[in-house]
């Protein structure tokens, strides 16, 4: 299957975000793919608030089934959440559960004025009432495939597709 060029999509995503960046807009990437995208977007859109990253491991709803993610990274929100306009950034929007966890975690830092969502790919299959305001591309995928963003050693981002392992989410 031919996958879209991630970096091309990212340029388009940046263009759609640009008009909405204000004095009080903060970009927050979700580990791991979302954090790479957010980093790139932060460099190019140059919002005044510093970049935030979230690892939602402590907020996931599948902890009881699969336990703690093996490599948890610290979340880092280096700005005042109270009153800010946050744009959450993730690579692939699917069930919506990760976004639910991310929203919960953000609220433990304070009460934002608004949260919007940007995703490079929206592959449908939502299990929660969550929608993205900014989408690079909508893509239909078989249920047994996993889509994720990869980053090469020299920083090139690309999409990759692999089989969903039975024991994995």
């Amino acid at each position, binding site marked *: 299957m031919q996958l879209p060029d991630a970096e091309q999509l990212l340029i388009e995503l940046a263009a759609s975000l640009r008009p909405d960046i204000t004095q009080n807009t903060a970009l927050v990437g979700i580990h791991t793919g979302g954090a790479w995208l957010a980093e790139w977007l932060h460099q190019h859109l140059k919002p005044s608030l510093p970049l935030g990253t979230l690892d939602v491991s*402590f907020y996931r709803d599948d*902890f009881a089934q699969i336990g*703690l993610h093996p490599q*948890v990274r*610290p979340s880092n929100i280096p700005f005042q959440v109270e009153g800010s306009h946050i744009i959450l950034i993730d690579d692939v929007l699917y069930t919506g559960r990760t976004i639910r966890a991310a929203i*919960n975690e953000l609220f*433990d*830092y304070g009460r934002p004025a608004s949260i919007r969502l940007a995703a490079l790919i929206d592959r449908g299959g939502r299990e929660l009432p969550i929608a993205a305001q900014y989408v690079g591309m909508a893509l239909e995928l078989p249920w047994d495939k996993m889509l994720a963003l990869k980053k090469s050693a020299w920083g090139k981002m690309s999409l990759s597709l692999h089989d969903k392992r039975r024991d994995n989410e």
Partner: protein
Amino acid sequence: MSNNPQLNKNGDLEHLLTTEGLPAPILLNILDTAKSFVGVTERDVKKVPLLRGKSIFNLFFEPSTRTRTTFEIAAKRLSADVVNLNISASSQSKGETLLDTVNNLSAMHADMFVVRHSQSGAAHLIARHARPDIHVINAGDGRHAHPTQGLLDVFTIRHYKRDFRNLRVAIVGDILHSRVARSQIHALTTLGVPEVRVIAPKTLLPSKVERLGVHVYHEMRQGLKDVDVLMMLRLQNERMLNARLPSTEEYFKYYGLTQEKLSLARPDAIVLHPGPMNRGVEIDSAVADGRQSVILPQVTFGIAVRMAVMSILAGN
């Protein structure tokens, strides 16, 4: 010898009973996870919903307000329900055995036991006989082990020194009776610290301690030379009563940490102490409150490390 009682058949951590025999990746995973929890403890809302609905029982057969409190805070920050039981006072005196108590509490749908006991091996015994889905954390058993303390100490060292692989670490004091020292030694050697020294008079060293992979020093000035990390141990008063030491004054003179002795270590050396400190016995106030002391950060990290251990166990 039996299999490692701390790991399940997939090699994941099932109980935390001792730092001995745990593979380095498991120790590093605890330290990495703890790092994420340090961030949580610095937020306004210092709580995550990870262990919502889980019940953690603090079984303290030996009183210790400090340790119990840190476990309690850790559990509450993970949203678990915490039940504190000081058992020395109640059931044990009525002739109920340790395992009777454990079986009773298991029936109350506990998910995790945090156990403190005056006898070495008590946590192993409980882990072996508790319902199989209950995780056991050893919060100190006799002279044997205090793994979360050992882990928070190596966490603190990593925080300040980044890498374990070119460090000289000295542990000073009553090694013989110290569960903390044993847990520190195993954690440090597993994580690749090339030189761990123990410094104590012969009456406070267990026999064949060098088999644990440490270098023995009796002279503190020699032992402190060029070390990067000093881990001081608490000296219990009863050591004088059973003729292991003549006096606290003489002990302080030869094994107490003063600014002057500290100057023999590397200039950027850090000083740890598991608390509570005996100022003027094993450590001088000027050092305890000084620039090189990391004793207060240890306490903060202690909560994060215990949160990490609890969440990793609950997830396995």
